């Protein structure tokens, strides 16, 4: 994907200031509620000696099994005569300590080894990988139980062991992030500048790792609470303690006498885990996903679209057809495409585009990446990403508005409009043979027997330069080269004899020598079959080579549209002139290289 809207600037994001992260967290009600509960638990735990009216094991035998609301015992008294609220308060302290042990042990082990493995790789990485495998093959709970024989009723020791068992999750997370960052430009640059490894780690890698580790930690803490409760519930805790798990166990044992007792520890344990999970989710929304567009639910979608349409600059003059109307096969009018911004408004990436393609004409659509050219190509086929919002516009195929009528669009897609994608290898389904995919595509567009479809496709494969079509049809995508995959995809696009082909950077991903061949194929197809084509590209050389007419895009607008000769010899817009000048200097550089 080359769209601006879907790229995620990971490193830029990680460097966002703490202040704005905090502000956005505070603006998120879910995060605030969770945080209040969690800080409350921490505070209660820390202040337990002052908050609790007595020791957790002080007994009020006269009031044994008293229900909630008993004077002096708001949550009642348990079957051993102990005040329930008091025990919950002391339990908060124990649970917080248990969680702290799990988190510290697993973060210390996992993050440090992950950093080293990701940064230095080599033997350390392979050994750490094996140890990770070993640890993950350990049956966690059973191991904790087994080690009871070793540690005795000591929950903190069990938590430390659990921390070791969880360390691989941090290891994997950190290692993969460091591997990514390591290959990024700025670390290379830092190396060139001569910073020591540790300063690079400190300055860049820790920045990138920080947010994911914090998010992961909130989930680890959640599982820590659950495991503490579980281990104690199994009877492996210290029976004299008042941890929430011990309370669960003891109240469960007296569930027939005093069923309500089990409710309190069950509630605090569940709410605390829920708060940690929801807080982790909110954190990851704020820290990671905000740069990504999301699919809006239907109502928000309608509202966003309505607001965006409201803001449009009113009905201007009626758009005029650029070419003679009988001759035009595809015409786009006032096309505006946007993506949802974090505040649910629409962030437009195409700002009202008009475009006409005549029969048999190859129309180049050039511009920098992110200028909106692929968006236009996708919208003619109705294959924009799910989150995209078409704010306004018409895509007229032979006088019929495809954007206004989904059934017309579905009929035209693949039959009258063909699509040649950018990256050949990822556009073939890896699980099926070439033959099966091609036959299925053709039969979806033109109902015919499998044998007929196969025959026609084999002829087409020969015409795009594949000499042994029968063998190629039996191969899987990973068994053919990129150039051959692109020929196959071109065949897939033209097999149904469409009126127009939309080719999205069809040569960008290919080797230079293969590029020329594929361009030749496209040219011949257009000449022989009279197919029109929209050729999306950032390469002016390709335009000069192949196109009849060309539109230059910048920031979601077409700035200039003309015949190719005219545009190259006499560019009117300054941006077009710059584009031409820069492409010439690139060509000069490439010539010098050779």
């Amino acid at each position, binding site marked *: 994907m080359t769209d601006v809207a879907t790229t995620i600037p990971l490193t830029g994001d990680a460097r966002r200031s703490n202040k704005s992260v905090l502000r956005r967290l505070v603006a998120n009600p879910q995060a605030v509620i969770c945080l209040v509960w969690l800080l409350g638990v921490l505070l209660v735990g820390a202040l337990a000696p002052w908050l609790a009216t007595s020791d957790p094991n002080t007994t009020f035998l006269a009031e044994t099994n008293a229900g909630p609301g008993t004077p002096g015992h708001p949550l009642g008294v348990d079957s051993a005569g102990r005040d329930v609220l008091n025990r919950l308060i002391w339990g908060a302290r124990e649970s917080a300590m248990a969680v702290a042990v799990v988190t510290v042990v697993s973060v210390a082990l996992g993050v440090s080894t992950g950093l080293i493995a990701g940064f230095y790789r080599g033997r350390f990485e392979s050994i750490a990988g094996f140890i990770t495998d070993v640890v993950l093959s350990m*049956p966690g709970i059973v191991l904790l139980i087994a080690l009871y024989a070793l540690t005795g009723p000591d929950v903190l020791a069990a938590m430390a062991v659990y921390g070791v068992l969880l360390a691989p999750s941090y290891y994997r997370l950190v290692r993969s992030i460091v591997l990514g960052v390591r290959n990024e430009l700025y670390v290379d640059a830092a190396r060139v500048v001569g910073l020591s490894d540790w300063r690079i780690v400190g300055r860049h890698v820790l920045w990138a790792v920080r947010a994911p580790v914090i998010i992961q930690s909130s989930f680890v803490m959640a599982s820590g609470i659950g495991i503490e409760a579980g281990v104690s*519930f199994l009877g492996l805790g210290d029976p004299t303690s008042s941890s929430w798990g011990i309370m669960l166990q003891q109240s469960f044992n007296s569930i027939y006498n005093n069923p309500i007792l*089990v409710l309190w520890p069950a509630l605090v344990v569940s709410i605390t885990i829920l708060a940690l999970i929801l807080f982790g989710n909110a954190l990851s929304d704020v820290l990671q996903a905000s740069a990504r567009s999301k699919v809006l639910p239907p109502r928000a979608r309608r509202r966003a679209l309505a607001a965006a349409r409201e803001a449009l600059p009113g009905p201007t003059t009626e758009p005029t057809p650029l070419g003679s109307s009988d001759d035009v096969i595809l015409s786009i009018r006032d096309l505006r495409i946007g993506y949802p911004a974090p505040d649910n408004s629409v962030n437009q990436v195409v700002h009202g585009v008009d475009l006409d393609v005549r029969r048999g004409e190859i129309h180049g659509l050039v511009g920098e990446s992110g200028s909106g050219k692929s968006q236009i190509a996708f919208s003619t086929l109705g294959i924009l990403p799910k989150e995209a919002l078409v704010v306004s516009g018409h895509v007229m195929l032979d006088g019929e508005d495809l954007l206004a009528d989904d059934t017309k669009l579905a009929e035209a897609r693949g039959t009258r409009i063909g699509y040649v994608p950018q990256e050949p290898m990822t556009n073939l*389904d890896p699980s099926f043979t070439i033959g099966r995919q091609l036959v299925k595509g053709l039969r979806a567009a033109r109902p015919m027997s499998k044998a007929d479809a196969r025959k026609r496709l084999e002829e087409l494969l020969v015409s795009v330069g594949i000499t042994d079509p029968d063998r190629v049809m039996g191969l899987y995508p*990973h068994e053919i080269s990129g150039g051959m995959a692109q020929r196959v995809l071109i065949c897939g696009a033209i097999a149904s004899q469409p009126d127009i082909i939309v080719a999205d950077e069809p040569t960008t991903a290919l080797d230079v020598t293969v590029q020329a061949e594929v361009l030749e194929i496209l040219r011949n197809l257009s000449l022989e079959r009279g197919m029109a084509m929209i050729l999306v590209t950032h390469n002016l050389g390709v335009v000069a080579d192949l196109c009849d007419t060309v539109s230059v895009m910048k920031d979601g607008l077409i700035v200039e549209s003309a015949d190719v000769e005219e545009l190259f010899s006499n560019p009117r817009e300054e941006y077009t002139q710059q584009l031409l000048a820069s492409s010439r200097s690139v060509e000069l550089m490439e010539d010098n290289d050779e």
Partner: protein
Amino acid sequence: MTRHLLFNLGRSVLVLFVVTFIVFALMYGDGYGIAYSVLGLTATPEAVEAKVVALGLDRPLLTQFGDWLGGAFTGDLGRSFYTGQSVSEALSTRVPVTLSVVIPTLVLTAVISVLLGVTAAVRGGVVDRVVQVISVGGTAVPSFIVAIALVFTFAIRWRFFPATGYTKLSDSPTAWLASVALPMVALLIGAVASAAQQFRTAVLDTIGRDYVRTLRARGVRESNIIFGHVLRNAAAPGLTVISLTVFGLLGGAVFIEQVFVLPGMGQLANMSAQISDVPMVMGTVLVMVLIVLVVNFTTDLAINLLNPKARTR
């Protein structure tokens, strides 16, 4: 592919050795401690000394491990320090109980969460949000707390089901079902919550692939794309989800057996650990590690069979 599988098999065997050795060393490391626990804290030093020798705990650790391993190959995992019962014999009555809860739950989890996850990913909208809420709620409440709530409601309040105990399937299928129904529901809730969410992610990930867009552009019908291509390609990550579910269920079963007093291997491990009956604990650890490795290996094999790239290699 054969080479890859052989490599994996070798790795699994190595992991098996390393894990069992580590656990063995940790548990048998302190022979006197074990003897103390077996005899009780009032035992005289002489009695402890005699017990250590009697149980063979005075021998070097490697010798003990070698003996244990040698025995394990012939199915002899030693005898209980307390009752003298053979460990393999104990396991042969305990493991089926656990599996008779875990396997039906696994099947149910797979069916329900595939349906939920796929619908959520494909349909989006309300189903999607419901699945997300269920998954957060279901993972937040530990399975044993769900189990306690179930006992409380269905066994104590309404007396629909027996609160505790186990009847063999071969003795009475209906009584068996009654004895495992609540344990299965308790396990199912958490398992579906996490598996449905992961299936959803796997399907969404596949729907976002370039070739799905190209199939759409070719005019292939959406239902054909979903059932013919998306599900086929999401199958490999889906299998991984299933294998993780197996581990989750086995871990959860330990707690569930405690709540419902089911005589499964989790309960055996727990009971034995609390009285330092190390041969019993070691036996359950071995069974657990074996299950983990076998499931991992089978998952890897199945994923390889699904992947044309590995298949044709």
